[in-house]
């Protein structure tokens, strides 16, 4: 006799944000199948914008409940909806929404950042045919939604298998998306393969760690594991190795040294809106999951993993800073700088002090908006070939020389984001750095904070180098001035002052590919999505820098893990 099946109780309202995003992703797949191709793109874009926005509304609705009760565990303990989870959902939905806006923007030429047919072999006749018939690869949007859904579950996971499944759900679409760039397709496909292979390997190590921890604790539930770690037992080595493998998997996603080697290549090869998406949202998801693992699941293991985390943090800060100093490509430079930021965030994690949770969340907010904004601007700076057609993004640093004089608003906005990365006061980045270093010092890790400020001082150098290039370099001396290392001497001040204004394109022959730049005005004429996203990021950066109290209170009130 089969016993009556009792359906498990699912607290749909508690996980509404995730359901909305994943449901929209499923809807997107159906749209792909059934909606005629004329309307497909509009419907997909609309869906991809509405879903994160609705998720934001759902998060807001859940906020006060979680603040007062401290959170709930749903789905039988598989998903924990507590304060840090809500903040992560907020950040992922907001930053994901802005990344979708960047992806949806087709700029002046009517082309977005994605290849017309991703499956076409680069250089083949089919690729040309797809381009000329106006094919659009609209699966991008449901893929982004699925990745967002995975990113939302990853920090909320309440047991190891959910953690792993979420990791895969967030990673697989990203592997695909990294290969979808319209230009330099071989580079993009190489980035995708690299990410896939290294990511699969990291996931395998992660899974191995899960198996070992399960072997130790006898359960995959976080609550049970925490209880098991509290009792010293015979199988401690199993636990330690398992935890280390788990950390390897998570640290890979954050881009920490020595698991960072994929970051520069993938960030450079992927289409820029996807780079923005990865750089911001993946880090949020990975760091909040790391926080949960370190603070809530394995508090008993602090002494054991502290040395490893210290070494990783110091190495990450140093490698990220030093490598960024010698870059000549702006996307690679921003990739290495994001590695350095991962190191700074790790100092807040290692502090293992109550302040660390709120500090890391604030830093992720500041870093996330500045990253999306910065990559959005990189997306808009294009090359134009001699016959006037827009060729692609101008990512070589030498091509950014003199941008400040021609397009001051764009250059000033980029400067704002760079200053936020550098941690200059009155920007959100300073609030993030201050919070994180305070937490580190309060937790007794003042050497980390000291290395952090020294790395920040060194990092300021390469951020300032870009500012110098944009504002203080004439377009002619862009090539020498952008050389990594000494800024070159400019000709006499008067000559430079004259050259800066209204230099005709015809005079410039400095670089081998005759380049010129198109600008923000191009986007505004076409669609404006990217302008909205960048403007929002800039406003948040300045607002949080000047009046951080509301944000700090908001985050500080909920920054406690469900035990």
């Amino acid at each position, binding site marked *: 006799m089969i016993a009556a099946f009792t359906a498990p109780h699912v607290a749909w309202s508690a996980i509404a944000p995730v359901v909305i995003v994943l449901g929209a992703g499923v809807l997107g797949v159906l749209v792909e199948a059934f909606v005629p191709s004329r309307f497909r793109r509009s419907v997909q874009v609309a869906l991809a914008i509405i879903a994160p926005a609705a998720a934001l509304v759902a998060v807001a609705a859940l906020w006060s409940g979680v603040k007062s009760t401290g959170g709930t565990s749903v789905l039988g303990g598989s998903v924990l909806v507590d304060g840090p989870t809500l903040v992560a959902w907020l950040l992922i939905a907001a930053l994901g929404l802005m990344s979708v806006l960047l992806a949806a923007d087709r700029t002046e030429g009517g082309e977005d950042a994605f290849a017309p047919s991703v499956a076409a072999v680069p250089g083949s006749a089919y690729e040309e045919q797809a381009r000329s018939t106006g094919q659009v690869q609209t699966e991008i949007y449901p893929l982004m939604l699925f990745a967002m859904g995975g990113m939302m579950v990853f920090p909320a996971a309440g047991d190891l298998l959910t953690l792993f499944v979420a990791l895969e759900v967030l990673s697989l679409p990203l592997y695909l998306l990294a290969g979808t760039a319209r230009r330099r397709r071989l580079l993009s496909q190489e980035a995708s393969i690299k990410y896939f292979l290294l990511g699969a390997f990291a996931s395998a190590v992660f899974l191995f760690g899960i198996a070992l921890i399960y072997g130790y604790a006898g359960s995959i539930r976080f609550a049970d594991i925490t209880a098991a770690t509290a009792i010293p037992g015979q199988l401690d080595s199993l636990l330690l190795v398992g935890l280390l493998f788990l950390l390897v998997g998570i640290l890979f996603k954050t881009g920490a040294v020595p698991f960072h080697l994929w970051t520069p290549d993938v960030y450079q090869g992927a289409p820029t809106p996807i780079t923005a998406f990865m750089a911001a949202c993946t880090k949020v998801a990975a760091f909040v999951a790391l926080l949960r693992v370190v603070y809530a699941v394995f508090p008993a293991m602090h002494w054991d993993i502290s040395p490893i985390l210290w070494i990783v943090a110091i190495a990450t800060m140093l490698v990220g800073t030093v490598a960024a100093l010698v870059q000549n490509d702006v996307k690679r430079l921003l990739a290495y700088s994001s590695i350095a930021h991962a190191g700074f965030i790790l100092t807040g994690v290692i502090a293992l002090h109550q302040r660390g949770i709120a500090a890391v969340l604030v830093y992720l907010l500041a870093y996330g908006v500045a990253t999306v904004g910065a990559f959005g601007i990189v997306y808009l700076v294009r090359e134009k070939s001699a016959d006037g057609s827009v060729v692609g993004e101008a990512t070589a640093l030498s091509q950014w020389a003199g941008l400040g004089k021609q397009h001051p608003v764009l250059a000033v906005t980029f400067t704002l984001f760079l200053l936020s990365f550098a941690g200059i006061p009155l920007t959100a980045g300073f609030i993030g750095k*201050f919070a994180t270093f305070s937490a580190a010092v309060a937790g007794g890790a*003042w050497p980390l*904070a000291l290395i952090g400020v020294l790395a920040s*001082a060194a990092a300021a*150098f390469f951020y300032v180098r870009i500012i*110098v290039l944009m504002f203080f370099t004439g377009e002619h001396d862009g090539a020498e001035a952008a050389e990594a290392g*000494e800024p070159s001497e400019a000709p006499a001040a008067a000559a430079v002052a004259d050259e800066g204004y209204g230099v005709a394109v015809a005079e410039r022959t400095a670089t081998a590919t005759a380049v010129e730049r198109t600008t923000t005005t191009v986007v505004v004429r076409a669609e404006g999505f990217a302008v909205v996203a960048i403007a929002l990021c800039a406003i948040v950066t300045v607002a949080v820098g000047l009046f*951080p*109290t509301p944000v700090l209170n908001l985050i500080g009130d909920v920054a406690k893990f469900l035990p």
Partner: protein
Amino acid sequence: MSSFPWLTTLILLPLLGALALWSLPSGARRFAREIALAFALVELVLTGFAVAAFDTANAGTVQLTETHSWIAAFGVSYAVGVNGVGLVLIAMSAVLVPLVVLAAWHEQGSATAVSNQLRRYLPLVLLLQAFIVAVFAARDLFFFYLVFEAMLIPVYFMIGGFGGARRRYAAVKFLLYSLAGGLIMLIGVIVLYLHGPGGADGFLIDRLTGISLDPTVEKWLFISFFIAFAIKAPMFPVHTWLPDAAEQAPAGTSTLLVGVLDKVGTFGMLTLCLPLFPNASRWAAPVVIVLAVVSILYGALLAIGQQDMFRLVAYTSVSHFGFIVLGIFAFTSTSISGSSFYMVNHGFSTGALFLLVGFLAARRGSARIDAFGGLQRVVPVLAGLFLVVGLSSLALPGLSPFVSEFLVLVGSFATQPAAAIVAAFGVVLAALYILWLYQRAFTGPVTAGLETLPDASARERWVVGSLVAVMLVLGFVPGPALNLVRPPAQVTINQVGVTDAPAVAEGSAK
């Protein structure tokens, strides 16, 4: 009167001026210079009112205070207030800024109408003034640090965007030096807050004064703060950013940079290092005094050997700042009040010197000393002004720098006689560098090509003349200014916990 937010007004007004200049409609752009000057003069008038609102009898207490909670989660407040020393420094900057705007009237290509370059430069000057007032008035340590770092941005653009041939190098060097010092100080700020009472107003300087710290922690905190201030001041051996910055920056920038900005370093030592870390200050005093004396002699010796006039004046500043630091760390009320007054006088004297060198360099196209010669026959008014300002730099009695230098030397002699004696040689060296500069550039036969150099215009006479007049007045009647700086010096002495040495020896009772 007492509840009017003078200091916030003084901070916001130049900020509004900068915003107005940045968003001028194209029709009004030709009046950018006049608008900038108007804002600077209104600021000067308001500063006068603020001085009137200040109670001179209680100059040692912090007045004109405003305290509001800003970031309660970090313990940060927006707190401003000044004692006598802060007030005179704000007044000095309020006097210098309109003169800098006037001096830059025809620079940056604005010979006939205002150029785009100048239109971009002037709002940065006003923005810098806002930050300067904020940093001298800050009574919350986080706010002080914030403005301390934020100040770097306009100066960086003022050097890097409007300067000489190697301006990018000089600007980046300035920025990284200052940033590094500031970041080291950040760690000290955080650690100090965590050792303090904490809470929503835990960063207020008044709350952080007088807490008992572990001696080792206190020493490390003192060092972290002192490094940042020594780089700012600048002191030997972290002074190397100043000559490049002063040489490459336009003269007005150098005036503000050296005349006002560097005072933040010594002001920080006086207002923060001494009251917050009294034991560590006493512990570090011998080393600091040695470094100060070395700065005095080293700066002077290097100034003598310079070929470029801007670099020469920059090195004289290194020397003068050695005197200021010597006076602060000699821990007598005479020497500390002398140092405070020295900060003001140095601003006027070196500021005037930079402006004059700027006028000469604009005429000749070069600031090298060997490009000039025999100018006193060609431009007698400029020569006369240069001589008077130069004599003020070497502390000729009758001009205000004499009063302050004398007070510093006499005050330091009471507790550090050896240092004072060696420092007095700095006066001799000052005479050397100034008078030799004057001799090479202004006396002797007229160098070829200089015969038709125009003399000082009315505008230039007003600019330098005002500064000379101020120095004469303060030189003959220093009383009011000294009344403002002496009580804070007494307060500082009490905070450091030394017994004050009498200013002069008692005469024998005959």
